[in-house]
């Protein structure tokens, strides 16, 4: 277990998530990428908590997981609505709103 390696992994997951969010087309893939983002953040928070003995960061990671689940629930409901109304699951095809 190494502090730097864990932070490296956290940054890796976060950056991968950023890539996914910016470059995947499927809305669900975007959601999964957002999960990666949050997981990267949670890993960083727990690493801090473990390394510095900072329970505050761990508490926040705990809340973070719950918030993520709530977000995903609303996000998936919106995704289903989008599919129902437009028949499209690719985020980059949804561009009625622009300018």
């Amino acid at each position, binding site marked *: 277990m190494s502090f730097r390696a864990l932070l490296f992994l956290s940054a890796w997951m976060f950056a991968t998530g950023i890539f996914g969010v910016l470059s995947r087309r499927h809305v669900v893939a975007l959601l999964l990428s957002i999960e990666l983002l949050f997981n990267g953040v949670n890993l960083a928070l727990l690493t801090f908590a473990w390394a510095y003995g900072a329970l505050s*960061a761990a508490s926040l990671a705990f809340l973070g997981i719950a918030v993520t689940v709530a977000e995903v629930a609303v*996000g998936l409901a*919106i995704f289903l609505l989008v599919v129902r109304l437009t028949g499209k699951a690719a985020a980059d095809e949804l561009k009625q709103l622009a300018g």
Partner: protein
Amino acid sequence: MQTASLLPVWLVLATLGLTFLVDLSGRPRTALRVAALGGLVALLSLIWTPDGAFLGLSVDAYVRFAQAVLLGAAVLALLASPPYMRHFRMERLAGDYALLLLFTLLGGMLLMSVRDWLALFVAFELLSIPLYAAAALNKRSPEGAEGALKFFLFGSVSSAFLLLGVGMMTLVSGSTAFSSVVVREAFLPAGLALLLVGFGFKVAMFPFYFWAPDVYESAPTPLVAFLSVAPKAAGILILFRILQEVVLPAGLSSALAWVAFASALTMVVGNLLALPQTHLKRLLAYSGVAHIGYVLAALAAGTAEGAGMSLFYFTVYLFSNMGAFLGVAAVEMMGLSPTLEGVAGLYRRSPALAMSFLAFLLSLGGIPFVLGFWSKLFVFFAAAQAGLWVLVFLGALLAVVALFYYLNVARWMLIVEEMQEEPAGPPPAAVVALVVMAAFVVVVGGLVPQVLVQPALLAAGG
């Protein structure tokens, strides 16, 4: 009686419960009215709410002032909603809509009074997540769903940044409470940078504002009216507290330079983007971005005056901007499209609406004698006192650009002939009454601004 300091919060919670019960009994429209009434009662209860701290939530004059702005925005939006929902045949969802709006309101009110990072994060999310759902409520509109999806994606991505930022801020002081103690200095700049990403999204600051025009264009207009004021006010005002209680005492004075930088860019980009717009809701969205640039100038001053001035700014903004959005809602309910062509000749169709619009546009543009002039002037004073002359100069220059697009809207409404062929119905009386009332405040307030300025300054406690 420490619990009394949370009186408005309790009242909104009670309203939530009551609204839920009424909605459950199959009367969604009544639920909407109950929510509005409850909000109004909570707003009035602020008069008797004392200072105090309870459950880690502390309330002082600043918090009460901010909560009044949030409650005012919610009440205006809820009052304008029933006719809007009826017109767009969304009445079955009126109860859900009211509940989501109340949840958001609660999130904002709690956010104003939190004093620890954990609660800050959760309250922040409570201010966000119900709004994603509420933006998607018009299920006949594919654009509505698209806008909601963009809103959700933007919010989620930035809240990942925020979560990390809040985590780092707790590590700075080694405690969950807001505190100026610095244990691990290295976390402070990184934490603040990440925090600003999350807040940047919430207040639609450059370059985190991209969601705003799309969501504003597609979401139900009364909700947008709320969305354009309350979350921004909550975000900026709590950011003020964080800067004053944590960041500046901890010695990161360059934070003010970051904010000044963001202020300049936000003003420039918001105003320039508003210029070529033809859709009123998009135009107001970008102009809202520009206005955040102005408030950020007061924030960048980092003084108690700055805090007082931004309280005042949001009070003014509450009336001018919500008034404008509710006016747009009335236009939509007349069967007109909310674009420049759609509102052409509005004066002939509804003089009251068009003249109120003129008042809002003048106020947003900062023309003397209306409220918006004073809010801009005082923000400039606050920035000038802190020596931020570049911001003052830029702001004054961009105010010219802003006037151009605001007056262009006024020109279409008052001077250009009607263009839309199909006959427009009369605007709903209830909404027009709200709009005229807001216009009245904007005009009369412009003559006696001290009525608002002094309480705002006192509340900021400088």
